């Protein structure tokens, strides 16, 4: 895809949101080994969940740089979910423990900068928890949809 198309796509969500019916875009950064497989299970089991979410697969929650979260906000995402293996289950032994430490402080920093903390969510979803994935996504989407006025942050272009 050309750069120009990418840019266009990035701004589509915002426009839809402004047009009336609030259709927020939610980005989910998930780990390859647990949550992505969990989401896969939800799909192969024909479970339905909100289509506002866009899933981005990465090797491990430890690979999900807090910068990605900011980038998602900057490109117009209304909510960001980070999800990975339960503590003790990491494919790389300790990636999720490290990321838990990172996010604990990063989340505080985001809140301090005025981002509504209901807009960032973290979860542990294992490969067998298709049900949990569906409920996490649906609850998160409902929460984001219920607060259209609270979606301002200093990272999005006005």
């Amino acid at each position, binding site marked *: 895809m050309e750069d120009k198309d990418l840019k266009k796509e990035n701004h589509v969500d915002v426009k839809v949101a402004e047009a009336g019916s609030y259709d927020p875009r939610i980005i989910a950064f998930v780990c390859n080994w647990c949550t992505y497989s969990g989401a896969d299970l939800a799909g192969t089991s024909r479970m339905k969940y909100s289509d506002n979410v866009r899933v981005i697969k990465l090797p491990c929650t430890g690979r999900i740089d*807090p*910068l990605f979260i*900011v*980038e998602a906000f*900057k490109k117009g995402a209304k909510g960001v979910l980070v999800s990975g293996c339960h*503590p*003790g289950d990491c494919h790389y032994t*300790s990636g999720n*423990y*490290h990321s*838990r*430490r*990172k*996010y*604990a*402080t*990063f*989340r*505080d*920093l*985001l*809140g*301090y*900068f*005025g*981002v*509504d903390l209901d807009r960032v*969510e*973290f*979860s*542990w979803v294992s490969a067998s928890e298709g049900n949990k994935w569906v409920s*996490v996504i649906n609850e998160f989407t409902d929460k984001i949809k219920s607060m259209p006025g*609270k979606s*301002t*942050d*200093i*990272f*999005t*272009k*006005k």
Partner: protein
Amino acid sequence: MANTKTDEKLQKIAKDLLESGEVSLIIGYTKGSNSQRMRPLFVTRTEDADKLSFSPNAVQDLAVFLKKAEVKKFGKIGIVVKGCDEKAVNALIQEYQISRDNIKIIGVECNGVIRQNIADKGETNVSESTVYDKCLICEEHIPVLYDFLVESEEPKLVLSGKVKPYSEIARLESMSSEEKNAFWANEFDKCIKCYACRQACPLCYCSRCIVEKNTPQWIDTNSEETGNAQWNLIRAYHLSGRCIGCGECERACPVNIPLMLINEKMAIDVYNMFGYKSGLDINAKPVFGVFSENDFNDFIK
């Protein structure tokens, strides 16, 4: 101005170190162009050691020079540090940026340094209303680690509790998201992306900073709202659990963004969550280099 006893002690230590060949460079302070200013001094010859000095105007954190290649090439280095600056040296040792064997720490007992903008107006008195906020919360008036210690002749800093250091943090925390947003949007709007905060920081030593990486370009290089916020967030985040609170970033900022409000908030958070304070122990592992299975888990579903 005549040499004080502190100056004489400093000069003697420096001379001995240089003469014996234990170090080939000493980084210290010397009197500046006027009596309210001190400036950094690099001593390589014994006869220049007489220029070394220390006073409550020595605001600079000299540890920042330890990350520079021009300084590193001297090998064994002696450095004059206050308690806060010494924590930066510790953090650099912890992160394997310098070796304890290659550095001689000349610790100076410091009872607070006078805010530069007040000192420029002629203030010479060290008191709770004239020193930096960092001095009011300082617990390391005598450095935690040193090879030589130079005691202070200045009277101890008396705290009445009337001046609340970093009181803005509590005020900000009590604000709503929208108010915080407006506060920071207003502050970051001033940012001109000069990166002086990074250059002045003793712990920002990456040879290639995230803002200089352009494939992909994570942080907008132009100075406008969104990129400014992103830069300031990432700078603060990369220093969380590492910042030792010397306040050089804030002092270097040409547009007076209150960066210490962010750094100090992160330091408080990290202490509350992990019981860790940066730069106190050269044998401790950096807080984000390790983890515990019992870490803070409340925010995760």
